[in-house]
């Protein structure tokens, strides 16, 4: 395998020649001054939306619970600063569709008064379940972008008895450096969070994977991890998508996650470095997640860099803080490879938002697609070993089942194929469309089967009723006949007797 890899080059992924991370990554962290208002969305995580526990007109303090978790997979939401709730209702979601979603709008008073925090001096004296409880109460979700609630994840890890924590400091997306920033500036918090998470999950070791294009972060994290033998900082090659959990797990542990399974099934739990820092604050200080570091970058930004922002801040306020050199040709939440294009700047940031990009027209060169020349670049780039050109050929022919058979389901939508395609074919878009279409058809099939079941049941019921009616009628008839016969017999008998 080693020799093959040497001859073939990297087996997957792309290596953008300019990752655009610097100079933004090297600018010291700035703290965003409080804006006039915040729109804190209720659904900032995978799972059920949080349920508001405040009413319009209520005054809330920093760290106060404003919406509670609903169900097992959910996360509560807290007020990032003090102020008055002025609205609970729809705002535009940070999604290309521009559809509305529910949020609590708080008009800030600028005093930034906080509720008293429930500190714990020694988190390792707590039961693992208590640690998970504190993580759950703080509303912590995966800050790498997947936003899966961290508490149920830790509980799952404990239940599956995971041995290894993989701490994701890959941050492979170009332009982004919020994880880099937290590792440089708050390495101790990250490492403490890792230790708390090891305690909560029962994992014996933690591997911190950091792409080798972040030497400062590697130095800082190594220093912070030095006292702890069970935590190892491992530089990994800078190659997109190294920050994808499956790829990082494979590089760090050599294990492969079976298709359709979670990493926990092979004894590994993956958590992002920013999540670990948030866990440290939540468990030690009782501080809920209401702030995060966001990278603001892109050619249109005047002073790019990392900014500590309250969650729920409108992107237009954030852009006003860093300044714009020119009108951006595209606004993206997340990185340029997988981020979502925003419909406008009046959308709030969410817990999973690590970056806002204001890209110029030159940065997003949009070229018309030309025919596929079967060069195979996409096949070499795909980190999952798929054959994108064949899948898109089937999708274009309407053969969604054919694409599905080629393991379309395993596509990460990482964008490597579309990035390298010399014909500029919108492969990811096709795959997203096909995934939606396959899902829709599966739903339709389910619905049809359900309807068929109902119709079948009705037919059976009608048949049964008819049968029962007929049986009842027959029985009645027989009874009557028997009665008549009895009567006849009786009358004959009486006649006989009388005779």
């Amino acid at each position, binding site marked *: 395998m080693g020799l093959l890899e040497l001859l073939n080059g990297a087996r997957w992924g792309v290596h953008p020649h300019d990752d655009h991370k610097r100079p933004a990554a090297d600018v010291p962290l700035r703290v965003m001054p409080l804006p006039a208002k915040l729109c804190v969305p209720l659904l900032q995580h995978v799972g059920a939306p949080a349920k508001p526990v405040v009413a319009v007109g209520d005054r809330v303090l920093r760290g106060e619970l404003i919406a509670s978790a609903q169900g097992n997979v959910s996360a509560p939401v807290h007020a990032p600063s003090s102020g008055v709730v002025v609205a609970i209702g729809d705002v535009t979601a940070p999604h290309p569709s521009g559809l509305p979603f529910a949020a609590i709008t708080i008009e800030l008073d600028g005093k930034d008064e906080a509720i008293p925090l429930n500190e714990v001096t020694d988190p390792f004296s707590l039961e693992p379940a208590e640690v998970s409880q504190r993580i759950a109460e703080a509303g912590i979700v995966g800050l790498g972008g997947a936003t899966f609630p961290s508490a149920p994840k830790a509980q799952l890890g404990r239940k*599956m008895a995971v041995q290894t924590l993989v701490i994701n400091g890959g941050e492979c997306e170009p332009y982004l450096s919020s994880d880099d920033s937290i590792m440089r500036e708050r390495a101790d918090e990250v490492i403490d969070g890792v230790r708390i998470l090891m305690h909560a999950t029962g994992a014996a070791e933690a591997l911190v994977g950091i792409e080798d294009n972040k030497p400062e972060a590697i130095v800082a994290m190594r220093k912070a991890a030095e006292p702890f033998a069970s935590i190892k900082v491992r530089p990994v090659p800078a190659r997109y998508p190294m920050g994808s959990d499956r790829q990082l797990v494979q590089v760090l542990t050599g294990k492969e996650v079976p298709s359709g399974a979670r990493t926990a099934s092979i004894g590994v739990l993956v958590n992002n470095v920013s999540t670990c820092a948030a866990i440290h604050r939540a468990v030690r200080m009782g501080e809920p997640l209401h702030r995060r570091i966001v990278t603001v970058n892109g050619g249109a930004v005047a002073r790019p860099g990392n900014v500590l922002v309250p969650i729920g801040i409108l992107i237009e306020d954030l852009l006003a803080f860093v300044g714009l050199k020119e009108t*951006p040709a595209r606004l993206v939440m997340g990185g*340029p490879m997988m981020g979502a*294009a925003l419909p406008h700047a009046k959308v709030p940031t969410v817990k999973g938002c690590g970056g806002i990009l204001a*890209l110029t027209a030159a940065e997003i*060169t949009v070229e018309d697609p*030309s025919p596929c020349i079967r060069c195979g670049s996409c096949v070499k780039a795909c980190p999952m070993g798929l054959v994108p050109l064949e899948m898109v050929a089937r999708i274009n022919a309407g053969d969604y089942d054919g694409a599905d058979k080629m*393991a379309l389901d395993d596509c990460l939508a990482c964008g490597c194929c579309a990035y390298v395609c010399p014909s500029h074919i919108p492969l990811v878009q096709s795959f997203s469309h096909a995934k939606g279409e396959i899902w829709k058809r599966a739903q339709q099939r389910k619905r049809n089967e359900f309807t068929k079941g109902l119709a079948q049941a009705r037919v059976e019921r009608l048949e049964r009723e008819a049968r029962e009616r007929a049986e009842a009628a027959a029985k009645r008839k027989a009874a009557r006949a028997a009665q008549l016969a009895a009567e006849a017999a009786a009358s004959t008998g009486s006649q006989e007797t009388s005779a």
Partner: protein
Amino acid sequence: MNTSISSALPAVAASPHAQAQGSIGSVMRKVMLALAPATLCGFWFFGLPALSLWLVTVGAALAGEAACLRLMNKPVTSTLLDGSAVLTGWLLAMSLPPWAPWWIGVLGGLFSTVIGKQVFGGVGQNLFNPAMIARVALLVSFPVQMTAWVMPMTGAHAPGLLEALQVTFGSGAIPDAMSSASLLGQAKSELSRGVDLLHVFANGLPTSFSGERPGSMGETAVLLIAAGGVVLMLMRVITWHIPLAMLSAIAIPAAIAHGINPARYLDAGTHVLSGAAMLGAFFIATDYVSSPTSRAGQIVFGIGCGFLTWVIRTYGGYPEGVAFAVLLMNALTPAIDRLVKPRVYGRDFKGQPLVLKTGGK
């Protein structure tokens, strides 16, 4: 501020928002660049007739493409500028006898882009390598003109301009003094007469690294072709899989057979350095459109091309087999792509999800 931003933003845009530099045109230009030294060397060896034949062939390929695009109401200029038609004509010209008459170039050029490519639906759609399909069509239709080789003649022996035009556009008869047989052709005809190779090449084989031997215009300068191939690999246009597999699959059976019976079988070096082997391995078989896309599939494809070339050269009716071998393997490309796929992460080679060994422990 917001209104100005939102008015500038597109309604919908899909990720990724960044793309690597590159286009069909840039790929084609890189191939042409790698092909240029061997081509210039061909002009040097075979003089102005080779240049005029090259021009005629490329021109005909372009004309055929343009006419088809026009008929189908497709954009003409932008498609011609992607360079794929030029490259097709160029590769065909490389494979022609350098002093072939003009109409060979015209027929071949038109055949390559019209029948070989546009009939299938244009760039990216053709099942067969267009240059090779035209070469084979010419070879079976005009066997005399397609096997009329000349000795390389440089310097004072080279034909002048008028003489050159006479060769390409005139009667087409090549003076006897200049005509010559190719090594593979000589070997085949002598063997078929019952003369063994040890007698035919008693004074040593006329193989040539420099490429000064009778042969097709662009197939003799083997070192320059190989250098161009290496440049293509360095530019990441092609990978080593097809060239190495193909050359090995010619050389290994040749070496074994030659070891067993040198009187009947040519040696490996001669096979690799003769005919279209080198050009085929680096520039013809590596054609994106008509070769498999996975690395493993490319190795299978390369081995098929190489082995069939050796079989056709050794046992077939034609002295050279690269074009036939490549076309036969082109026909198998869809099957190879279907059967030889990369393993999907988290799945076995059959596409089933991997089974956990320890069951969650």
